[in-house]
């Protein structure tokens, strides 16, 4: 479903992706782990062209995501879920889900707020899958953070995509809500046979939900396997300088302490 080879990308002088090779089969639930700045987000964004990779090959759902002329055809197949859910606050929940259909309907009809009966029915089905059928007519900004993210999932499902990319979908939620949201994403994509690539910070969620875990560090693939292979040594490779960064921050604090003492004297 997804074929990546020697993918690279830089922002200015900063090399974010340094030649990534990866193959993901249809229906897999893949979790990508890595520190902030390891390139997880960029990796995901390249897959539906919110970012453009510099080199390598990238095939998603049978479409060349690097050179495809028809960007919309790619994005129709590849839905995205964001950390800050990015739902439109003043629209109703149902309409937010229907925005997932925009690429597949005519501009004129949608701009006039006309959606086919089938699309509305599909949107309601998607809301049912994330347990929000009863909120269809509520205004989206009246929902809680976890519910908004579930609307984000429903919007992605409404695209009827082959692939869902989730960029730290639960990073700004409390642990209990986060697990619930992950559960909805996991169950819906399993039942519909959608391939999922999900960036996460929580290793325990990766163990719980992933068929397969991929570790990124400094723009390189450092782990590719299932949860059982995720031992201490591997985690050390995925999160390499956890200790050295702590030392740095401690060093950064020291002069400030001096300064504070100086003021006191």
């Amino acid at each position: 479903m997804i074929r990546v080879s020697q993918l690279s990308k830089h922002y200015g002088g900063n090399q974010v992706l340094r030649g990534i090779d990866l193959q993901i089969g249809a229906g897999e639930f893949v979790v990508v782990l890595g520190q902030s700045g390891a390139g997880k987000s960029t990796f995901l964004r390249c897959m539906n062209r919110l970012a453009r990779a510099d080199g390598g090959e990238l095939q998603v759902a049978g479409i060349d995501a690097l050179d495809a002329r028809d960007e919309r055809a790619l994005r129709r197949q590849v839905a995205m879920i964001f950390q800050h859910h990015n739902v439109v606050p003043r629209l109703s929940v149902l309409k937010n889900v229907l925005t997932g259909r925009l690429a597949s309907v005519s501009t004129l009809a949608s701009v006039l707020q006309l959606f086919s009966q089938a699309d509305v029915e599909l949107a309601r089905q998607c809301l049912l899958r994330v347990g929000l059928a009863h909120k269809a007519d509520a205004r989206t900004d009246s929902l809680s953070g976890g519910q908004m993210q579930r609307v984000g999932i429903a919007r992605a499902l409404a695209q009827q995509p082959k692939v869902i990319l989730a960029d730290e979908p639960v990073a700004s939620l409390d642990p209990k809500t986060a697990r619930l949201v992950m559960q909805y994403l996991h169950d819906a994509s399993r039942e519909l046979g959608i391939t999922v690539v999900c960036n996460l910070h929580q290793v325990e969620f990766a163990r719980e939900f992933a068929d397969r875990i991929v570790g990124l560090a400094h723009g390189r693939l450092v782990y590719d396997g299932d949860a059982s292979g995720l031992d201490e040594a591997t985690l050390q490779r995925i999160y390499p300088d956890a200790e050295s960064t702590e030392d740095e921050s401690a060093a950064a604090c020291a002069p400030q302490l001096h300064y504070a003492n100086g003021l006191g004297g």
Partner: protein
Amino acid sequence: MGTHEYRWLVSTPESLRGWAVSGTLLLVIIALLHWSAGGAELSWGELAAGLPQIGDFISRSVPPDLDILPKLLAPALETVQIAIWGTLLGILFAVPLAFLAARNLHSNRWLYQGTRQALNVIRSINELILALVFVSAVGLGPFPGVLALAVHGVGMLGKFFADSIEEIDQGPLEALRATGARPLQVIVFGVLPQVITAWIAVILYRFEVNLRSATVLGMVGAGGLGFELVSSLKLFKYPETATCIIVITLMVIAADMLSGRLRKAIQGDGRH
């Protein structure tokens, strides 16, 4: 005893240099005010000498001639009609320009700068001057008034619309683009829902301003109550002038209260 109970908590300059700077600043301000007073020919003496004349003017205006009220109904309605169409035409042309003048919707810097500057230029031309131009172009009557309000309105509304577009949350727009939505769809489903209440508040405010301006535009022949006001003034029918001023004031107060209440209702709606 009293001096010990109070402390003067005004921060004063601590050094000689600080005092010098403050003193110089004070002198500069005094000099500026004196210079402006000279240019503007401020003269309490003349004002005092003119007071009897003002009193005379007022005494000749009272009591206001309320008999002409029925005659003022048509011009008053015309003023409202001018304001309505002046506002509406302004909105129609301001909306597309606002999308071009919003930095976050496209990356063409020249288009952005060009539209912004054009809006600034349009806004800087006074409505009365625009009205004079349009009166000479399309003749006397309410229509040049509508055009003057519309043109000035484009400048103001366009700027405010664009500013509120630049303030919106970019996240939903990115999400919509990620679904493959086309630019127009992104605007309708991502931008408009986020700006609509701010826009309505600005439009109501603009209508209020237009109503006020429409009463004055008549003075240069662009229809409405102002026309009646100036005619009565020229014929020395001061009681009629007084009635015109009262009607204008009441209309402006009514528009102010109505739009204030509507704006409050809309913004309150956005808070829950």
